[in-house]
């Protein structure tokens, strides 16, 4: 299936049921104030009207707690470690927002860097997880994907992008896996190829919705003019030394909610757990907001106060990751940290402050070739 297909919206549950043969299918479900991915149940139906899920779907590929290996603590086998085998379950996530899919594409480059730095747990889960995105037609007030190399109908990281056209749904394949999946969908329900007059109308509608979504963000007081351009031109030493950091960090509680809700935050801790004669080594989500994150056993801490820790988070997103990933920001503009921060720290305002300060900061004395705007 190379081309996009148009399905009746009423057929979507049937398609999800067909995809569910041999796979666990998850869809976003809203309960009260929370929207979270849950196992698809045809009897409960599904809604395509939801903002970004409260938490990003990163836990499907990078669980909050994950066993890396097991061991015995007694007997002749004590201390021998065995890899925890990953289950063979295949999954399909339906309704992933393009920002969250972009985060997966970004984390692919963090977890699978080269032969020496490949995380097999991430790689295997990624391979076994199909991602069907749902294009954003009405972004949240905190969304700013368009300023972060993304867009409401972007396909990066996805296998299929679905676009809600009201009575119809347009499914656009992105990868070979997505094309195979679309062929499965076409067997479960009648799909009309998106070509000819009808197809042109559907594609036109999708385009209108994309422009509408982008216009929402363009009208936001927070998004226009948001750019990494000046930050990317200045040296990391200069951005690090900007005078803005104490003020930005002032209200931060170092609670870490930004890092846990962030789809691209991936830092983890490794800890041993034992019970009786056996134990396991697990990795848990960690947060750079914690003092312990960088504390040396000697007591020395390279990031001793919250100023250094808050700075680290924004430097990582807007300076270090772009440096390491060919200019790609380490933020996808999902807006979760803006919504969840109890101290109302707004990453968009932080970036704007970085941008302004970078435009006027004097050049670093140690880096003679630094470009200054």
């Amino acid at each position, binding site marked *: 299936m190379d081309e996009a297909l148009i399905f009746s919206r009423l057929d979507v549950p049937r398609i999800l049921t067909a995809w569910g043969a041999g796979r666990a299918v998850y869809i976003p479900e809203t309960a009260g104030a929370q929207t979270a991915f849950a196992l698809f149940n045809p009897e409960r139906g599904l809604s395509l009207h939801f903002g970004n899920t409260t938490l990003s779907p990163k836990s499907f590929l990078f669980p909050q707690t994950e066993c*890396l*290996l097991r*061991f*015995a*603590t007694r007997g002749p086998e*004590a*201390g*021998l*470690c065995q*890899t925890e085998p990953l289950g063979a379950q295949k999954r399909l996530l339906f309704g992933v927002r393009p920002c969250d899919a972009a985060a997966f594409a970004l984390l692919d480059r*963090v*977890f699978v*860097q080269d*032969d*020496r*730095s*490949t*995380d*097999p747990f991430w790689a295997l889960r990624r391979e076994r997880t199909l991602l069907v995105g749902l294009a954003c037609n009405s972004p949240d007030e905190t969304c700013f994907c368009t300023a972060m190399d993304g867009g409401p109908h972007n396909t990066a990281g996805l296998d299929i992008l679905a676009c809600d056209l009201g009575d119809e749904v347009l499914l656009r394949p992105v990868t070979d896996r997505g094309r195979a999946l679309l062929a499965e969908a076409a067997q479960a329900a009648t799909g009309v190829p998106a070509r000819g007059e009808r197809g042109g109308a559907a594609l036109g509608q999708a385009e209108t919705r994309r422009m509408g979504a982008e216009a929402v963000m363009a009208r936001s007081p927070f998004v226009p003019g948001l750019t990494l351009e000046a930050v990317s031109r200045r*040296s*990391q*030493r200069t951005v*690090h*030394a900007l005078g803005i950091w104490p003020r930005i960090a002032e209200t931060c509680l170092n609670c870490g909610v930004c890092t846990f809700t962030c789809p691209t935050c*991936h*830092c*983890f*801790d*490794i*800890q*041993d757990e*034992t019970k009786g004669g056996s*134990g396991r*080594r697990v*990795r848990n989500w*960690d947060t*750079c907001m914690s003092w312990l*994150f*960088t*504390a*040396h*056993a*000697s007591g020395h801490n*390279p*990031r001793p106060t919250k100023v*250094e820790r808050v700075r*680290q988070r924004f*430097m*990582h997103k807007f*300076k*270090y*990751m772009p*440096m*390491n990933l060919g200019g790609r920001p380490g933020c996808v503009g999902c807006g979760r940290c803006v919504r969840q921060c109890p101290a109302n720290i707004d990453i968009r305002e932080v970036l704007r402050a970085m941008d302004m300060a970078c435009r006027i900061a004097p050049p670093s004395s*140690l*880096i003679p070739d630094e470009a200054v705007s």
Partner: protein
Amino acid sequence: MNAANPYLPFPARLVEACFDTPDKSLRTLRVAFEDPETAARFVYRPGQFAELSLAGKGESPIGIASSPTEGTHLLFTVSRVGLVTSALHALSPGDRLGVRGPLGNGYPLPDLAGKNIVIVAGGYAVTTLRSAMVWLLDPANRKKYGLITFIYGARSPELLLYPDVWRGWMGRDDVDCRVTIDNACQGWDCLVGFVPRVLKDVAPASEGSAALVCGPPAMIRFSLPVFEDLGWQPEQIFMSLENRMKCGIGICGRCNVGNRYVCKHGPVFSKAELDRLPAEY
């Protein structure tokens, strides 16, 4: 590194161990892999480190003090400061531990062939420099390098690691070995004075030279200006950093200095590289 699961340590046994200092805060472990094939595949360079793993306790990143030219046993000198290192101090010969590695980049010794090498060490930061020295003085490698100068200092004689090894170097004519302590004491037969002072006296020429520097912050702080006064460039000086680490392969995100991970891109950085990074270490 285990290709299928980089978090899986290789099983190893403690062969022998000795406390290096009277206060028993430092202990050198000689470790052998259980599987000879693992030992053969564990190819490392001076300056690299490994995560020493104790099931149920955790892991600790420790520099490899042995040189690959010394055979398949690994040497680690461990300072007792936390949970894992205390457990490492409590191991008996024959006990099992895990070794995950080799990790990090190591000293760029092959790139420095043809140069004079100056090694400046302070306290127990000498561990990976011991590895570098033994490697450099191996007959197969020694002839590729010019003058080799080894300057090593500690507060007092009993805090100097590996005395048998450096006393052996003192007897050689192809290495200038200077060992110093902070304050004079009875029975001490080598130098007295801080490392930067000794470095100033030696005054190594900058031309065609490279330096490997590892030690406490105060030693580094006062040694770098000495090099600078002697006309050394930041590209010629290599330092090894330490940071809290977990994964050891540049993923878990905590040991970064700027955009570089100490575990993956380091721990060895040239001063020129460090000058371009935020000084957050």
